[in-house]
């Protein structure tokens, strides 16, 4: 498959009064055309900041992309002008946000909001845009789409609002759809509705999806490949099968073992990762996972340089820290 997006050594830092927060600290990854990539990790590990950096939506100040490059269809987005970025946002790269209650404008009708990007990016006239909006709403399963196009967001339920967001995001046939925790605020059965719609549509349209979530079930169901982030860095990257069934990094192993499964027959005690993720305001030397790694006696990972992502088998990359990669780090 052709390469769609390349992120090289991206560093996004926030310069606050307390000091520099290294939210994203040197991540390298890519998305191929039409694939679904998941970015997983716990709160504060830099997942959302990574996504915001791609669209250059980092609030500045205090945030700044200090290093790296983001190559989208051959163009480095970090060197693009504001005008060029506006032509890309919502058009070739679009985004679905977490909070369906706040990400729609409450004083504009649903129709006005969908039409806006269609008219802007595709150059259709008003009535053509309306027809297209109704098609899109039907596509995401809004009943009586033609009758509801002049309704306001408050007249829709949470799940329907999120479907409207998806309709907007797909309105210009983007090459890449970024979905930042698209279902976290929704109930389980509604979550299933929304994810099925998003998964099926992106497959039909050939859109690549970057899904950001902490829900490992959603990852297992929809992702082709997975990047696991910890403390602003990627510590493991591979196919979904590998990450779930053959995790190599101690953090990934711990993360997988700490989720209860609905299909567990026997009651097994959950594995835990002791301690807390580090505060990103303190500069991290070497391996960020070292303080929580169950096995650290003889390893010098905390005093040496940052562990580099190393390809241990084709397409399976792991942060090269000897103790984190040792198989007996599986927590009891």
């Amino acid at each position, binding site marked *: 498959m052709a390469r769609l997006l390349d992120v090289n050594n991206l560093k996004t830092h926030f310069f606050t009064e307390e000091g520099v927060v290294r939210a994203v600290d040197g991540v390298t990854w890519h998305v191929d055309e039409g694939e679904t990539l998941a970015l997983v990790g716990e709160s504060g590990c830099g997942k959302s900041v990574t996504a915001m950096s791609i669209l250059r939506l980092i609030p500045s100040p205090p945030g700044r992309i200090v290093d790296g490059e983001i190559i989208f269809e051959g163009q480095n987005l970090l060197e693009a002008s504001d005008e060029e970025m506006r032509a890309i946002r919502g058009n070739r790269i679009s985004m679905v946000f977490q909070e369906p209650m706040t990400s729609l404008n409450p004083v504009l009708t649903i129709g006005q909001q969908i039409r806006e990007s269609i008219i802007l990016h595709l150059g259709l006239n008003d009535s053509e845009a309306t027809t297209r909006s109704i098609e899109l709403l039907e596509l995401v399963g809004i009943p009586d789409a033609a009758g509801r196009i002049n309704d306001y967001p408050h007249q829709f339920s949470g799940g329907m609002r999120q479907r409207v967001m998806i309709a907007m995001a797909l309105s210009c046939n983007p090459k890449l759809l970024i979905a930042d925790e698209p279902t976290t605020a929704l*109930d389980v059965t509604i979550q299933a509705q929304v994810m099925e719609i998003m998964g099926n549509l992106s497959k039909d349209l050939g859109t690549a999806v970057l899904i950001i979530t902490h829900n490992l*079930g959603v990852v297992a*169901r929809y992702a082709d490949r997975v990047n696991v982030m910890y403390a602003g860095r990627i510590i493991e990257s591979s196919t979904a099968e590998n990450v*779930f069934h053959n995790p190599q990094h101690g953090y990934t192993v711990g*993360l997988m073992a700490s989720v*209860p499964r*609905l299909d567990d027959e026997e009651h097994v*005690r959950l594995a835990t990762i002791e301690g807390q993720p580090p505060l990103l305001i303190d500069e991290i030397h070497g391996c960020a996972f070292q303080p929580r790694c169950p096995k650290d006696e003889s390893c010098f990972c905390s005093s040496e340089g940052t562990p580099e992502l190393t390809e241990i088998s084709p397409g399976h990359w792991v942060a090269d820290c000897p103790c984190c990669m040792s198989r007996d780090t599986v927590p009891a």
Partner: protein
Amino acid sequence: MVTAESNPNDTLVSVKDLKMYFPVTEGLLIQRHTADVKAVDGLTFDVAKNETLGLVGESGCGKSTTGRAILQLHRPTAGSVEFDGVELTDLKGSELRRFRRRMQMIFQDPFSSLNPRMTVSQIIGEPMAIHGLYKGQERRERIEFIMNAVGLNPLFAKRYPHEFSGGQRQRIGIARALAVEPDFIVCDEPVSALDVSIQAQVVNLLEDLQTEFGLTYLFIAHDLSVVKHISDRIAVMYLGHIVELSEANELYNNPIHAYTKALLSAVPIPDPVVEKTRERIILEGDVPSPLNPPAGCVFRTRCTRQGTTGCTCSDTTPELTEVSPGHWVANCECCMSD
């Protein structure tokens, strides 16, 4: 009735036909009672000693209201709540307070449920002061003991909540509930606000404490995987009603009600190989408003089988019926058919 064990002496909490309606009023000066939000509408279940009963359902189905109505934090509109053989709905004032010592609650949000201006030792000590337990040195020792039990370093007793992480704050909330040696704890979404690895720490802690102190839990959550992991039995709620109640593994392996099936199939299993072949039942539409719930079977507006069996669920409210020992289902013909 819906009991876990045949021996009624093992029952700690017994809920019968519990109803909790919230009145809706109109008018500024003269408030007219125009409607009721039927948050909980006729629940019957027992919780056995040392058991964990899980309560699952989507937002607004009345899970939390049930927990609060059992603790008499909301006074129920109708029905009975017996705790260790005593009818709680009849108790008032100091009599009720005596029972409150034995029933505690752990809240969802570890940020808003702790007073930011009290230290950890004040937070844990407050319930003891209210109930007049442990004085002076004894209380200090008890606070230290509880902090150790929940995995907090007693050296942090003089610190304030903002100095702790989310997982540690949840431990403070658990310590506060344990302070007065309760028998029964209502855990209202205790891990929903926490990250996965921290969630596992708190779930394990709750299990350890249950063994150590012989606690009984009502575990309320919307995350079915967590509920199934921690619960002995699970009650599935929909729009103020229990639609299915059974032993946890039985519920997963042999769900009978259409809503339970849809709910179980909607939860993705963290395993790409399993998920590849798993069929999903996608429910159409949204949950109806509890202000105006459907008459009869509350699930019928989303049930794909509605009307196909010629059952009368639009007129009569289905009763919970025991289909196999310990497995209770709301007896609606179309919801129960395949």
